[in-house]
């Protein structure tokens, strides 16, 4: 019954996209795959190493595996903290943003400001701001008797990076949530008032479910960005003190460009990439299926 005309020349329309994707994604990734199964001592000489780098990488008892898993746990911990703070805080900010009048424009501009600052500038701002000797925040904390020094103290370094990321990215979550909230028709709130719903009930039964889609986007974006974070901690702490804030991307750059271990770095970046994909898939699946009805299985009789 297929009456649609078949014309293979239609593929020509796909060709430009295919070319762009090939040069921007497929070729670079295949280059990395190529590196990951070889070893090199420079001079463009490569030696076959099979899955050797991957075995070493995934074995925590080796030097490579050890630093990889350290950085991985550090990074997962960081992403978890970021999500746990920024998502609820973003929702809270979105809920308290004004709904109409000139205040909306003012708030939106104010909220967008941190998002417009280049990442290395964010790092520099906080590096200066948090310095114990001349930075306002660092100096004030020490003056209050709280020992604070992000260059020497692990806790201080972590707190600074987390606060910096919250300052930088909570706006994004808030703006997304605000868009979700604005799309809820007034009738829902009116019906809830007639039904005698409390503020909390309105939040859990109307606002949260209606924000589900934008929250999914917010969680995915914030997870990916925080899991791949590089510029800000690199500028702020350079991965220190010690290796305390050496996240995966920082470690990867050290490995690839610092030590020029192309094989190890290629294997690491592939695994890194797969982890990001896998975690995003889990988030996506869980959040799109949360609250939906299980399909009723029809049993054939």
């Amino acid at each position, binding site marked *: 019954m297929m009456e649609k005309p078949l014309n293979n020349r239609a593929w020509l329309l796909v060709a430009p996209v295919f070319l762009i994707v090939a040069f921007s994604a497929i070729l670079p990734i295949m280059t990395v795959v190529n590196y990951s199964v070889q070893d090199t001592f420079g001079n463009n000489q490569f030696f076959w190493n099979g899955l050797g780098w991957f075995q070493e990488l995934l074995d925590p008892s080796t030097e490579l595996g050890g630093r990889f898993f350290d950085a991985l746990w550090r990074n997962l911990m960081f992403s978890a903290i970021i999500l746990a703070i920024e998502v609820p805080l973003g929702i809270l900010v979105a809920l308290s943003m004004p709904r109409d009048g000139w205040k909306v424009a003012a708030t939106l501009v104010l909220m967008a400001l941190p998002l417009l600052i280049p990442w290395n500038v964010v790092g520099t701002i906080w590096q200066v701001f948090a310095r114990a000797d001349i930075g306002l925040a660092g100096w004030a904390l020490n003056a209050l008797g709280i020992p604070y020094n992000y260059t020497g103290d692990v806790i201080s370094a972590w707190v600074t990076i987390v606060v910096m990321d919250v300052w930088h990215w909570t706006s994004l979550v808030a703006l997304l949530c605000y868009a979700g909230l604005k799309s809820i028709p007034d*009738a829902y709130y*009116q*019906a809830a008032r*007639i*039904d*005698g719903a409390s503020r909390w*009930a309105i939040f859990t039964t109307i606002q949260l*479910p209606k924000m589900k889609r934008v929250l999914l986007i917010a969680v995915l974006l914030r997870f990916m960005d925080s899991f791949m974070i590089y510029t800000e901690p690199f500028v702020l702490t350079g991965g220190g003190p010690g290796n305390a804030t050496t996240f995966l991307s920082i470690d990867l750059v050290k490995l690839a460009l610092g030590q020029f271990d192309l094989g190890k770095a290629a294997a690491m970046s592939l695994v890194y990439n797969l982890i990001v994909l896998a975690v995003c898939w889990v988030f996506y699946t869980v959040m799109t299926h949360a*609250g939906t*009805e299980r399909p009723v299985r029809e049993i054939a009789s």
Partner: protein
Amino acid sequence: MASITLDHLAHAYRPNPQGPQDYALKEINHVWRQGGAYALLGPSGCGKTTLLNIISGLVIPTNGRILFDGRDVTHLPTEARNIAQVFQFPVVYDTMTVRQNLAFPLKNRGVPREDIDRRVEEIAGRLDMSAVLDRKAQNLTADAKQKISLGRGLVRSDVAAILFDEPLTVIDPHLKWQLRSSLKELHRSLDLTMIYVTHDQTEALTFADTVVVMHDGAVVQTGTPEELFVRPAHTFVGHFIGSPGMNVLPASVEGRTAHVGGAGGVAIQLARGYSALPAGARIELGVRPEFAQLAPAGAGVPVVVKRIDDLGRTRIARIEIAGHPASALVPEGVHLNGDQAGLMLDPQQIHIYADGALVAGQGGA
């Protein structure tokens, strides 16, 4: 239960209203009887939704009071009033099942669990929804969702009035009849006051015992569907109700004769006398097409036939009376030659309006 009294009620959305043009809702005095089925009928933007929101407490009126059984509720919040409202677009709580949706208003009011269960089962039975009680509300059709929002009002035993804000807008046409008749049935069995806002005259006339017609923020007539049809109190009501609407022709009246079209126009005999017409007012003659029948030329008032629409059951002629467009019925078996015809009018059904408002005639026949 409750009768709802609107006492000198008026509302303006802008602060400091000066004249009547600033009011979205002009002064209204009205009593909604306990147990009545009312329709609030009017075109979009006539203030009917504003009035509904004032009754439900979503809008606080600028002037006047609302009384429920004599108790002033003007400034009471929505949840403290004994009303429920069904909105234009179905409102259901997406994450909940139908049962949880129906239980929600009771749960919020701290009703004991066993009472909630009993009440939900009972209302679900009345609404024919027992089979889907444990389905997610989100996955149901628009008419089922609309029944859920109605059900959330019905479960509350304290509800005295249910307000409907154009509830059938998003429902498929073939389900509209069904839903409307189940509404009527519920109304008969539950002794609830129902106020139904719509711009659809068929919905209003089939649903309500009393129809309140609104125009430009003011109530122009309150009456049974028959009264609205036979004795429109305002030319607007004549236009708005009926399909096609009432013919309204500019006229001058002397005693029991109306003249349409000035000198050289036509004279129409009236059943009543109009001696006290206000001077300087715009005088119009109104007659419904149903009471104006075409006849071959020579009988009745001479008219020019422009077009005849066959509606299946009836034929409606578009005509001109002394240059003014009008509509009239073409009775079975009447054959017209050329564009000249005569118009037979029922004098009892001719009304005279001054500046749009009905003028009562003296005497009768």
